[in-house]
């Protein structure tokens, strides 16, 4: 059963000079335990779709429905806090917080504080393959790959079912890209996340359970979904 669906979603970017139809009647659905890849050319609308799914904005027409409820009818802050975790290409860690604090931040937003939160953060950091020593470091003391893994840990700390990643390997080298892909696949297949990845990376696309291609705002399913493991 799909956790999030797009129903005839359109999105228009309106500027003073032009109106761009980023999405034109997108219909798609995403299930838990699967890794989805959204591919397409630059400007095709894939990041727009991801932003709509992340609750960063609302569709111009149509609906994004999360667990049966359109995002337009729910509190988006709460939705982002509890239901949608996002990983960005440029990590977007909070620079003034240590690794541990970055990871515990979403937990604290949900009232999960103190030692328990820090222990969980340490656990997640370990899970994403980083040593304990990074916990007290600031993000800018880490490499890009390490920062992205911290970002993944932060996303995992949110304890959501939906994990959205916008070109998570875009700023990483091959080795780190591979590690992140493995991590995301692991999260989808072993931890049951619905992982949606916007990417240009063919490796991710090839390893995704389902690949959607977006062209001129229209979505096409390119690779048949396989049953979740």
């Amino acid at each position, binding site marked *: 059963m799909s956790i999030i669906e797009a129903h005839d979603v359109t999105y228009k970017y309106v500027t003073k000079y032009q109106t761009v139809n980023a999405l034109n009647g997108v219909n798609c659905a995403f299930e838990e335990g699967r890794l989805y890849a959204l591919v397409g050319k630059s400007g095709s609308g894939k*990041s727009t779709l991801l*932003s709509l799914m*992340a609750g*960063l*904005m609302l569709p111009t027409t149509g609906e994004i429905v999360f667990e049966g409820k359109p995002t337009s009818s729910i509190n988006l*802050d*709460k*939705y*982002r*806090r*509890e239901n949608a975790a*996002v990983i*960005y290409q*440029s990590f*977007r*860690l*909070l*620079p*003034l*917080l*240590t690794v*541990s*604090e970055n990871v515990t*931040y*979403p937990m*604290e*937003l949900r009232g999960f*504080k*103190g030692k328990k939160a*820090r222990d969980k953060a340490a656990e997640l950091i370990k899970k994403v393959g980083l040593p304990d020593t990074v*916990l*007290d*470091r*600031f993000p*800018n*003391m880490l490499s890009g790959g390490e920062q992205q893994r911290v970002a993944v840990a*932060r996303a995992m700390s*949110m304890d959501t079912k939906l994990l959205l990643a916008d070109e998570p390997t875009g700023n990483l080298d091959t080795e780190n890209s591979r590690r992140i892909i493995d991590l995301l696949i692991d999260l989808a297949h072993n931890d049951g996340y619905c992982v949606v990845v916007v990417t240009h990376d063919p490796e991710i696309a090839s390893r995704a359970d389902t690949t959607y291609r977006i062209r001129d705002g229209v979505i096409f399913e390119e690779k048949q979904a396989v049953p979740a493991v």
Partner: protein
Amino acid sequence: MLAIRNGVKSALRTPGKTILFALILTMIAALLAVSFSVFSAVRGYINDCNGYFHTIAELEYVGRDYPDPFVYDEAVAEAVEENRGLIDELMANEAVTAFEPASAYIAVSDSIHRFDENVMDPNAAVLDVNVMSYDSELSMYTVLVNNSLYSRNDYTGKLVLLKTFDGMDAMQIGKNYTIAGRFFKGNTSNPWFAAADLTYSEGGVEVTVDKPVLSSEVGPDSEFHKLARDLHFKNDSVRVTYTSSIEDLYPFHQQILKLDSGRFFTEEEYASRAKVCIISERIAGLLDLKTGDSIRLDIFTSDGGNVYDSGSLRETDSGEYEIVGIQTDSASFPYRVFMPVPDSSGGIVNVNGYTLGQFRLKNDKAAAFSEASAALFEKGFRVNVYDQGYSAATEPMRELLLISAVFLAVCLLMAVCALALQSHLFVGRQREAARTMHDLGSGKAHIIVYFLSSALLLSLIGAALGCAAAKLMEGRVFGLLKDFASQFANTDLRFSSSSLALSRTLELSPAPGFIVYLAAGLVLAAGAVILTLIFSAAAMKTRTGSAGKRTVKARVPRRARTSRLSGMFKYGLLSMRRGGARTIAVLAMGVVAAVFFGRLVSSLEGYREQLASYIENAQISGYATDSEGHRLSGLVLKSKPIFALSSSDLVKDCNFSSGFGHIMFIWKVGDKYVEYTHPATSFAYETTFDKIWKSPAWTGVSSVSGSPLFHYSASGSVEWLEGYGEEDFKRVDVVRGTYEDYDPYTGETRTEEYAYETGLQICALSRDTMEEYGIKLGDELEAAYGYYADNGSGMISYISGLKVVACYTSATKSSEVFSPLTLVQPDRAFAAMSNYYDESELENGGQDMVWINGERITRSTLAKYRELGLVPGLSYSSFTFGLADNTRLDELRDKLTECGFTYVRSNDRHMTPAVIEDEIYLNTVHSMERQIQYVSVLYYALYIMAGAIGFVLAWLFVMSRRREIAVQRALGTQPARILLNFFLEQAILIFAGLALGLAATKLTGVDPSPMQLMLCAAFLALWALASLICLITGLRRRSFAALTEPE
């Protein structure tokens, strides 16, 4: 063309930016043009002032009879000789452009026969007469005038009644005599004449004819003929003044004399010493002359003495002089003739009167010149600078010039900044476009033209609009400028010493031409071209370098332990703690703002305190004076206005003096005779009388140091005998005694008691006098003194036991003897003060009125007079006063008018002129007020600027963190939580910074003022407001765009 078209297109396709910059540049161009036009208008006005106003300085010596313009005083020549070095030094001062020495010339003409109040001895005459008869009852001869050797009217052929005098030899009927004496008013139609010694000292002339009546067998060289000539020179001459610049001559310079008709001298007339002259209206009226006529004049001068003494005169020139102008008359400068002379800048020559000459000065160096003349001031000289109002007109304008220059500089800086920003945005930010154009084969010139087309077009539009706006605002701006100028011109200067030098005004009428606005526009356009070229060059240069590959060094904070903080404000608190440079910057901003506000506020308060302190402590004094404002005693001042002003609470330290014509001859010091003639017992009464007239003046004063001598010379000191002081000059003792009163009806003689009040028998002498007579402090003198009564008669009185309690030194070599006023006042004054008034006049009309010296006053008023040491109805020779409260200066001006004083050079001769010496005070206060005004405006601008900077910085601080905000929002943080965290962080940091700044201010020993606290609070509020606005806008949904922005 392509480049231009594309350039213009690029500007038009970013209309927001283009309009914004067009507006900015329009505003800056307008400000630039306005400030430039104001600057040029003020500068032009100051330049005009330099040409319009002329500054001169009169050099005077304050001698015995100062400011008598006719007297010959040998002390002047001596003082000049002694101080020649100092005078030469002053003449060589860089401020001096020329020195015109005063000289004593007189001109006589047979046609000039004066009948005016300025004739020195109008009734004196020397006559050849034939004795007709003698009336023994009247003791008068009737004589027929054969010839008027000298007389104001021609009495030839007329009968005159000749009054004899004691000891006069009898005249024989039918014989001829030459007689000298004065006509006086008799009770018959025939003129009455008294043969008398013509010995007098007025005007410095001393002519003595021991035997006024002689037989007619006297030749033309006799004393009578000499006397007749002297009288002719003395009475019928006119003063001639040679000048190389008549308009700069004191009376014309100060507008005391004005040209009534005709013209001044031409350059050629000065250079060739042409025989032309300008005469007074009186001479013209007397001789029925008009401009273009000629006058025959014989010009004389003295080789070293009195110009009215025929014995020392020599003729220097004579002939027909063409009258080129006729000047108005003035009581101070009657019967004057002015003649041209080439500019010689010669030294001081023999003078009559006390004016030694005048300097022509550079306007802007007059103040320094005045300071340089201080050394001469201490030697008894006085240098009076007259600038016609130059400093009053230009000083505020100089400050305005400075302000406008600063404003102009700020505008230029703003223009440079705006143009630089414009160049950066329109050129610098288009490096990629430049690179592309370059790659596509465009030449450098093409690229530059492309940029110029966009940037320059904008600048030209801005400059044109701005300059047009400035031109439209011109009237308003110059109106404000004129208001500013008139603000100072409208200062109440009644009685003010500032107005003594004020003789002209020049209205500020700014009218800069179109060229000023064009220049402002061109400056802006030129700036735009230059900066565009610089930025274009920079944009093209980066092509060859590593453009666009800038590496940003990451900020690496120190390693920190993971915080155990939790809760709503955790992020804000951590951000404050870990903000590093940003936290320090905000704190520093707070500290700087608090200290900055503190400095500004304290400096402004300091200026205000200085002003208040100056107003409170400055000593303003005033004095009664003559019609020209000279500082002198020897005036005839009625007691009524002096009493009216002295009894007012507006003044304090009132000092008045009176000599009552007393002149003192000291003959005994203690037991030692300094002159072996005892006047009281001497048979040589005349000798005593002569000695009295050559002796020091005896002046009654209410205070020694407050006497005119010290008040006017501003130098000198008083040494007191132990146990004595100023208060002893105010003390009044009651003298008691008895007298025998014979009653003719009863034939009894009763002993009556008497009592009257008088001052202490003490005096203060000059050191020179004490040395001359061998007097020491504590000695007692015996002296004779004489005085003239109102009717012209004189008498000699004696005083003994006059104790010398003070010794003074003064620059003017005065030998005056000062005693308490209550001692020197004549007997009738004592009588008045001692209740010797007519009892029958009391209880008049229900009021307790008394008659005192012709004045009818109440007893209570009399008591006030006595309290002040004044006597109703008497005249005083000087009056000085101090202002009790400087803030009531204007009230004092009203009070002076109310008391019956008038201004210097007013036409009201019935009132006493008075001067308030407030020039320095007014200049200082006005200058400080202007400074405070400017500083206040400047500081308010700085407060606003600081507030704006704070606002922008706070905005930028928050804006720079929009990605953090976006991430937090993306993570689902409630906007309120983000807002609170960021807002509190900013508020707490800036508050802490301001608190630290205030603490720092306190540590420096200065308590933060309410104004500083208010400004800090306003800064905090602005900072918080900016943070809040930025946060609110940053928390909008669009803020997520920051997530996708590159780092």
